[in-house]
């Protein structure tokens, strides 16, 4: 560093900039303000974009579920249509009725579902559990999931097997939903939080280990609220499972409640389910798209892919059902409040558009914002750049004799050019450096004070700094060239 500061070009630049300390300072300030603004705005823009994306993802707008079989359930949400009972002896109620607060109880039991197929009914007998292996319609395979994973625009893929099970802890038991699923699931379910422990690992999935993650409701019912079940064993299908984690909801929008599909549920590797129940098929495949605006295209591609893979002729109907969360949310009515807040200001006549269109609108809006910010950035840097040009021209004028002298003792035009260009770049990068620091602090400040999400990425820092340097080169070019074109005799004679 010291050596660098002593390099003649650097030393001369420092000395020269020291001559007009005030002007140099003001110009540095100008660039710094420009760069800081750019950075803070980029941070706010990226933050807004990210929080919109997150809300959209949390609402599952970028999610596609492909279910085996082509039956249309009477109940829109068969996932949620889980029969539930506090006690096994209590009769199960149809969730649709329950949700509507209907007083009329209708007897309902998962085994009554006429659409369910069992590819290996004997598993129950083998395991000695009469309910094992129920509810497994079977047209999709793990290879289907792998094929979908390879489609462009796909973010995560998780194959799932779903069962209604009884979970036993000593004498206590709880009738709930079992999801044999993929390690990727926590990435898809962004609104999950671990009360304790962890999700099962890829290794456990590979080995089909007998590990289970409990939903909060299940954990509370079996172990009591506040207890930590991690490390203890529960049994399903008369098999012992080690509890590795407990999940609950990460947002206030969703609260764990008995009978819900996510937290009144247990999770295990789908491989474990396949091994124990002797299944080779998947009930469903959950896919998330990298971009929520991409859902339609991806849906079409998945449909095409699966029809080919399943050898379905042109006039035959699908042997699977593709459901997007967007369609689902609309039919079940109402938007999740977080999404509603995010989009309400952007779209008039909310009820006329699908959520997917909303997502697209939001993405477009944030793109517009990005362009707006780019325009602001351009203006502030243009002003800073003119400042640099001004001070460099001033410097050239003041130092005309010095330039003449340097030429007289052997400086070539390019040496003079390099010197002044360097001085311009020193000003702009100094401004860039200060601007980056101020911008980062400002972004954090905005995040704290206004509770806005801001994202300062290394790329945006590098970009802001690089732009500052480029401004120096661009606006220093003309004065530097002017200096290098001076006639040494004329320059030496200048007062």
């Amino acid at each position, binding site marked *: 560093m010291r050596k660098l500061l*002593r390099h*003649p070009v650097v030393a001369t630049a420092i000395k020269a900039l020291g001559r007009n300390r005030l002007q140099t300072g003001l110009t540095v300030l100008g660039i710094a303000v420009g760069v800081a603004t750019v950075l803070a705005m980029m941070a706010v823009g990226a933050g807004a974009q990210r929080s919109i994306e997150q809300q959209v993802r949390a609402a599952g707008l970028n999610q596609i579920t492909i279910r085996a079989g082509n039956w249309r359930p009477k109940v829109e949400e068969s996932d949620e249509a889980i029969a539930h009972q506090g006690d096994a002896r209590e009769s199960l109620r149809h969730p649709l009725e329950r949700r509507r607060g209907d007083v009329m109880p209708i007897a309902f039991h998962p085994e009554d579902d006429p659409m369910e197929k069992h590819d290996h009914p004997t598993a129950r007998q083998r395991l000695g559990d009469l309910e094992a292996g129920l509810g497994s319609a079977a047209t999709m395979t793990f290879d289907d999931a792998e094929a979908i994973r390879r489609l462009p625009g796909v973010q995560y893929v998780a194959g799932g097997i779903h069962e209604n099970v009884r979970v036993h802890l000593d004498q206590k038991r709880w009738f709930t939903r079992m999801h044999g699923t993929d390690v990727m699931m926590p990435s898809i379910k962004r609104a999950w939080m671990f009360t304790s422990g962890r999700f099962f690992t890829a290794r456990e999935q590979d080995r089909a280990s007998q590990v289970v993650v409990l939903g909060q409701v299940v954990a509370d019912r079996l172990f009591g609220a506040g207890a930590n079940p991690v490390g203890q064993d529960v049994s399903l299908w008369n098999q012992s499972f080690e509890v590795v984690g407990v999940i609950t909801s990460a947002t206030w929008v969703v609260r764990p409640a008995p009978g819900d599909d996510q937290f009144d549920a247990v999770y295990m590797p789908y491989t474990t389910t396949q091994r124990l129940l002797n299944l080779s098929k998947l009930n469903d495949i959950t896919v998330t798209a990298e971009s929520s605006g991409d859902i339609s295209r991806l849906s079409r591609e998945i449909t095409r892919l699966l029809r080919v893979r399943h050898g379905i002729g042109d006039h035959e109907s699908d042997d699977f059902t593709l459901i997007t969360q967007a369609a689902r949310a609309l039919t079940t009515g109402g938007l999740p409040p977080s999404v509603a807040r995010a989009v309400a200001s952007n779209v008039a006549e909310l009820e006329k558009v699908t959520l997917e269109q909303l997502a697209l609108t939001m993405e477009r809006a944030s793109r517009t914002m990005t362009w707006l910010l780019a325009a602001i950035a351009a203006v502030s840097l243009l002003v800073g750049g003119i400042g640099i040009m001004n001070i460099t021209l001033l410097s050239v004028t003041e130092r005309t004799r010095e330039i003449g*002298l*340097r030429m*007289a*003792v*052997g*400086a070539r*035009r390019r040496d003079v050019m390099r010197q002044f260009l360097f001085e311009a770049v020193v000003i702009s990068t100094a401004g860039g450096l200060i601007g980056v620091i101020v911008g980062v602090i400002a972004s954090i400040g905005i995040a704290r004070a206004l509770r806005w999400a801001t994202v300062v990425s290394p790329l945006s820092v590098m970009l802001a700094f690089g732009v500052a340097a480029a401004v120096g080169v661009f606006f220093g070019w003309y004065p530097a060239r002017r200096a290098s074109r001076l006639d040494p*005799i004329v320059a030496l004679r200048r007062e």
Partner: protein
Amino acid sequence: MIDVHGLAKQYQVGDHVVHALRGVTLSAAAGEFVTIVGPSGSGKSTFMHILGCLDRPTSGRYLLNGRDVSTLPGDELARVRNETIGFVFQGFNLLARTSALDNVELPLLYTRQGVVKSDERRNRAMAALDAVGLTDRADHHPSQLSGGQQQRVAIARALVTQPSLLLADEPTGNLDTTTSHEVMEIFARLRRDRGITMVVITHERDIAAYGTRTVDFRDGLIVSDVPNVAREMVGHR
């Protein structure tokens, strides 16, 4: 060393042409000390700029050490100025707020090999300051030096690349009589000890007498060119 033939220089000022030089022919061998005298506007400075490769003649030929430099491209001329020629100006032309040592180092930033390494730069600059007897003022800024000392720093700067030709345009113009003679003694000594060819412009007859030869300019032409035998004797006094 210097071989100039039929050198002419014209300037276009508005619609009329100024003839600064009208055909100057002059040869100087290595180690000569040429002083140039003449009235103001007679073309002395113009001639010296061409000798110093700061300017090109409109017509005529200039051989420096046998090489025709009148048509060289700019970068080549810069190299010649750096390696072969040292300049001393009337107004010293030192960089303000810069130590004597740094001022002397200046030509070493632009050598054929690029920027000379800082240790070597320092050593060579100190040696040059030693030649003008100013090593004890190396850290002083120009504003802290007298006129004579400033001119000696400027001479050291001209010497630092060890040129074979030293050009000085009225180097004593801003100095009092005593200091003027001190400076001229330095020139005479450099010629004697190092064999550096000197060309010095001056108004004053007694300064011109330091030369081994005095050339008189008038209206862009040389009107007299006489050896200065007396000076040789004075030099050995």
